């Protein structure tokens, strides 16, 4: 699978309250949540983001609460994948469990710039910055988690295999 889109750049420690503020957690409807995705980090994000676009962030992306509303809001907003230098652990597992592709690359996170057009090959983990011509390789995804993505998330995986 290849993802292609323009980059929205964010800094370090983007927390779940910035991704989807708690004041909107009285619903879990993706169509409502997407209208407030990333709002407290960039109020214009929900209106600017286009289908396929990519979030690139610094370290510890998604820190804070366990709310799955965070990856749901990002996915529903049309973002195809997230690249960061590191992810907070609950956000990391939530993304795989619900099928939002995420990639860890310190170099890509430091060098890719706002608005660049990039392409990500999910199977090889190759990240290509079309604007600058540079390429990066994301940290490999463990086999179990590749299975989760291939099956379409944790619940589908359980349906298929009868166990986790």
């Amino acid at each position, binding site marked *: 699978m290849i993802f292609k889109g323009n980059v929205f750049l964010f800094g370090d420690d983007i927390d779940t309250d910035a991704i989807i503020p708690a004041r909107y*957690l009285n*619903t879990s409807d993706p169509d409502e949540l997407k209208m407030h995705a990333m709002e407290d980090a960039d109020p214009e994000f929900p209106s600017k983001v286009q289908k396929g676009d990519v979030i690139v962030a610094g*370290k510890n992306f998604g820190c804070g609460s366990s709310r*799955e509303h965070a990856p749901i809001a990002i996915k529903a907003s049309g973002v195809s994948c997230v690249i960061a230098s590191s992810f907070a652990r609950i956000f990391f597992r939530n993304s795989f469990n*619900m099928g939002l592709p995420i990639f860890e690359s310190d170099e890509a996170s430091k060098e890719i710039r706002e608005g660049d057009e990039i392409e990500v090959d999910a199977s090889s983990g190759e990240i290509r910055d079309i604007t600058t011509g540079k390429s990066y390789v994301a940290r490999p995804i463990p086999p179990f988690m590749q299975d989760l993505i291939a099956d379409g998330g944790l619940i589908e995986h*359980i*349906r298929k295999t009868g166990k986790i």
Partner: protein
Amino acid sequence: MGMTIAEKILQAHTDTPEFKQGDIIRVNVDVALANDITAPIAIHEFNKSALDRIADRSKVVFVLDHFTPNKDIASANQCKMVRDFAHEHDIVNLFDGGEVGVEHALLPEKGLVLPGDFIIGADSHTCTYGAMGAFATGVGSTDLAAAIITGQAWIKVPSTMKFTFVGELQPWVGGKDLILYLIGDIGVDGGLYHVLEIDGPAVSSLDLSNRLTMSNMAIEAGAKAGIIRADDKTDAYVRLRAKRPYTLYESDPDAQYVSFKEYDCANIEPQVAFPHLPENTRGISEVGEVRIDQVVIGSCTNGRIEDLRIAAEIMKGNRVARGMRCIVLPATPEIFIAAENEGLIKVFLESGAIVGPPTCGPCLGGHMGILARGEKALATTNRNFVGRMGDTQSEVYLCGPAIAAASALTGRISSPQEVM
């Protein structure tokens, strides 16, 4: 090779005979917890799976504590969905209405989480129970749905970082100050993917309440769990409440750690975390003049009776500063009753504080104490991210109950020594 407490608990809960750090293993879950924000998504996933199978209903716990008593129609609908599901599937551990307490204060009190358990919760502060010698970690709603269906969770075997607190605790210093100090030292991603094992004579000298405060904030360093060995104090607390057997584990002397740190409590004064990250800590003597509009005393971090006693001791016979809102939220009904019986509620009300029901309320900017643009709050809660308690232009400072109570009286961040 020796094992840590975390490794021993994982070993007792998995069928994988041998594992090493970084392996992904399946683990049997003793308790699967969710609240009124995370349970609806878990139930949605459960229904979507069409498996209609609950591995063990006695292990499922739902606490409707975040936006309750229901703050609006949407949150009322979310609670109703959880309540209906619990009734339909015979989930006895549903805490609703007057039985609601803030989940991580409630579960230890009810004897639902025990030493040696492997616990997951669709709430990041599930790590609180590490203070009881359990492996407890926050997950998402999909993980929780999977645990409800299969009784299991997947986990990447973590390595453990060790933190030892030695030396004499300084006046008005408690578990909150020690953990803020630790987070200030290693940063909000300093424990990412790791287990923090916290020990030392200073931690042993703390009561369980203060230890729960410490483990509660392990996630604020990015950690998977924050484990404190269960000792006689833990056992004395648990023995009265447990309805099933439990195990007290100790790390082996030759257990492997990725790092060691020692902190001397002689150097740790009461701490305050400045906006907008829990790592922005300063000792109280370095805070300077910070005027505040609101003080919140409560939450799963510092809403227990021991915290309320400290606050009342400082506030007794004094008045909350003019223009200040001081909101006190006992974390559970049992704590509320104890506070009433000990006369603490009267102290708070007579000092001009507001006393509210057990709820998360303002801690995550839900209700009952939302901040306006430009306002500053000082709270005994655990997060001070942008917009956490209201407007994105408001600010939250974090501290323990003593600093919070003293500051409610002066209207600016203050040491108890100023008012006593």
